[in-house]
């Protein structure tokens, strides 16, 4: 009697969990931390052009890396696509990617925007730069990231939270340039100048500057582009710091071929296509970013922000120094 019902139920649960999935035809499978609305049009274009189907699933970087690691050699993923060099560096560090020899990729992606060991390649570029109120700041007053710690910016600086990887990479690059001790002084000086506690996102930083809570901040270029597209009347402008020195801190979204890819050739072809002249605008423009391929011009709206000198240090340094950067920011009280 009463034994049967729950027993059956248990049995059913076990049986149901064994239903197999049908195998699929040749295709490229992508694990992506870059969002669906930014990559779907791209993959659809690729399929139209080549007939190769691209299947993808999105998630945050951390879970995606863990997923790859747990699946080991049985993973279905051929390509890992993610944002921020730190995450790409980590994927390579954990042995989740494989080196790729491709003349096309070497020609399309500048050296400082790809892994020195060719395990991953930048595909779009974003700069983390200064944004200021055109009503209360003259561009001549601005110079470098470090200078935002000077006394004239007391109570005028606004920052995004240190939890965000973009700030961790920025501080990582500062460490690469100045060393830990000097960077910690810089960050402490920033914190002393804050007009409000750090915000959850770049948009909030810019809106607070527009509203007058502060006068200057640090943001990614595409956030600025998207906000100004919606609200062109906002009195905000970008400034390219450190043009006499090392240049603007840049970061990438990029991809690599997974170590246990079943279709590595298909994966490499997809990466080559993504870095090619025909796809670069499609890739970068969708998010108001810069193409990495130097032969491709950015979208007119993006080009209008002016040209700038990029920091030539390889972006993978940001990954190596990420842990150090977080510790430093925690010590300096940067929340």
């Amino acid at each position, binding site marked *: *009697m*009463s*034994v*049967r*019902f*729950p*027993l059956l*139920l*248990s049995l059913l*649960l076990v049986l*149901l*969990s*064994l*239903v197999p*999935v049908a195998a699929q035809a040749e295709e490229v499978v992508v694990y992506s931390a870059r*969002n*669906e609305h*930014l990559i779907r049009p791209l993959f659809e274009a690729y399929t139209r052009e080549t007939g190769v189907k691209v*299947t*993808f*699933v*999105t*998630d*945050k*970087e*951390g*879970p995606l890396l*863990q*997923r790859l690691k*747990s*699946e080991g050699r*049985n993973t*279905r993923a051929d390509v890992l696509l993610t944002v921020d060099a730190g995450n790409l560096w*980590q994927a390579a560090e*954990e042995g989740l990617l494989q080196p790729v020899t491709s003349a096309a990729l070497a020609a399309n992606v500048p050296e400082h925007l790809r892994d020195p060991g060719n395990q991953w390649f930048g595909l779009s570029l974003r700069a983390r730069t200064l944004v200021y109120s055109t009503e209360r700041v003259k561009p001549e007053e601005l110079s470098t990231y470090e200078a935002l710690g000077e006394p004239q910016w007391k109570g005028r600086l606004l920052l995004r*939270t240190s*939890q965000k*990887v973009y700030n*961790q990479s920025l501080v990582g690059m500062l460490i690469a340039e100045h060393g830990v001790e000097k960077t910690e002084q810089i960050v402490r000086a920033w914190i002393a100048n804050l007009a*409000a*506690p750090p*915000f*959850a*996102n770049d*948009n*909030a930083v810019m809106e*607070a500057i*527009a*509203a*007058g809570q502060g006068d200057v901040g640090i943001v990614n270029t595409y*956030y600025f582009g*998207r906000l100004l597209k919606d609200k062109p009347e906002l009195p905000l402008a970008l400034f390219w710091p450190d043009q006499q020195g090392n240049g603007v801190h840049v970061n990438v979204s990029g991809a690599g071929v997974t170590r246990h890819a079943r279709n590595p050739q298909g994966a490499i072809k997809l990466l080559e296509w993504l870095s090619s002249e025909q796809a670069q605008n499609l890739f970068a423009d969708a*998010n108001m970013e810069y193409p990495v391929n130097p032969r491709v011009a950015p979208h007119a709206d993006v080009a209008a922000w002016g040209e700038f000198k990029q920091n030539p240090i390889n972006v993978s340094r940001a990954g190596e120094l*990420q*842990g150090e950067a*977080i*510790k430093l920011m*925690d*010590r300096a009280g940067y*929340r």
Partner: protein
Amino acid sequence: MSDPSSATTNLSPERAPLAGARSGFFRLNFWDGWRLFALLVALLVVVPLAVVGFSWLTPAADIWQHLRQTLLARLLLNTLWLVLGVGGLTLLLGVSLAWFTATCEFPGRRFFSWALLLPLAMPTYVLAFVFVGLLDYAGPVQTLWREWFGRDAWFPAVRSTPGVILVMSLALYPYVYLLAKNAFQTQGRRALEAAESLGCGAREGFFRVALPMARPWIAGGVLLVLMEALADFGAVSIFNYDTFTTAIYKAWFGFFSLSAAAQLASLLVLLVFLLVVVEQRLRARRRFATVRSSAHTTRLHLKGWRAWGASFFAGMVLLVAFGIPAVQLSLWALGAYTEEFNLRYFGLLGRSVALGLAAAGLVGLTALVLSYAGRRHADPLTRALVRVANLGYALPGAVLAVGIFIPLAAVDNALIELAESFFGLRLRPLLQGTVVIMLLAYLVRFLAPGFKPVDGAMHRVTPSIDEAARLSGLRGVALLARVHLPMLRGGLLTAATIVFVDVMKEMPITLMTRPFGWDTLAVKIFELTAEGEWQRAALPAMALVLAGLVPIILFMRHAEK
């Protein structure tokens, strides 16, 4: 009893007669199906918890040292504030509103009775985003404020401890409200009338009779709220408020140390486990069974300012927790409609609803069987199993998702190896990326919110009812179906509603375990908000809220009858 250990430990008065009636029927008592099922479900939850616990084998001393030196003091304090603040405020809001709508009469009571549940459909992170957007310096409220009172006019800081507590409490009070209302509605007025006949006033009746009688339900609701608050990442990160959970994510995504993250998370589970044990010890050996009687016939008619005060209070809570954010979301959704809407939305909506329904059914059924197992076997082992099975809710979603995924992938890998070495086949992973696994993962996560209401309802089934049924020859499944199920219907519906809405809002497990192409509304919200596109995210968020409203309204209509 054929199991001597449970005979000696079974002191719970409501269970004793039951066990007595069964003696001699089972030889196979220990591996009785009910207990076997409890064991199976507990195992399902224990595996991810064990994965998290095993992290202690991989030391992460330098991260711990760093945390101790810099953040630990603040985030412990912040977490403490969150527990006290959100626990206290949801208790206050949930119980008072439940009391008014369940036992009093005031203008608009029928409407508020179901409408006060609406915030359940509003994800906490959405509420947080709307409030920070509206009330922070750059938002419309403060902008207007400055125009009226000058640039330096004082305004309370929104991104602050009280701000987080308030927003989270507004989002989470429905758990307490729902369970407390259930309790007040089913406890009947007899005890209260008896108290009145002994000279208790209305206030005394509430504090000395009704409240203690509703305690398991209220405690269950508050516990759910605390688990949600402790595991929340979305809302606290919008406030940039450091808690234990933000440290977990920092360890994982920042230091790339999953083991440090899991170690921190295991402490969170331990904390919740202690809360559960302490609460249950405090009310051990009380019985809460009452016969459903003339529950609604004699409501307390509030008069004059009391009546309007009750309406105003309920109205304000509803306005702030649901009205304002819903209007803001609608405005954004309208603005983003042309850019964002496409036919794929029907697929997203359909999958969200299908997963929600399937999970609600699965969790409801499991909770029922589990609660029944706990009722039939009051021995420490089964009770411990039932308790453990409820702990999945205490982990931050992403940590639980990984805890589920690691063993899952290991099983898959082992199966593939086997197939390869025995049959020379190169198989694809069998388990990963199947909807069944997704549903099992939801079961692990949402068993607690499903179990609490069902178990609460189970308390209402008196031993005398069982005995009467037994005397008329009803046993086992027949007893469950014909006698218990009708009595448990309210609890089951509550469970199904909560789980349905919770599953639709859930992100990390959905993201990690979904089959290719199985995007849902929550996935869409994640995609857009991860890129800061909150206005575009209003469209899927609105769709999610609307889909969540349907069961809430149906459920409350049903419950009011």
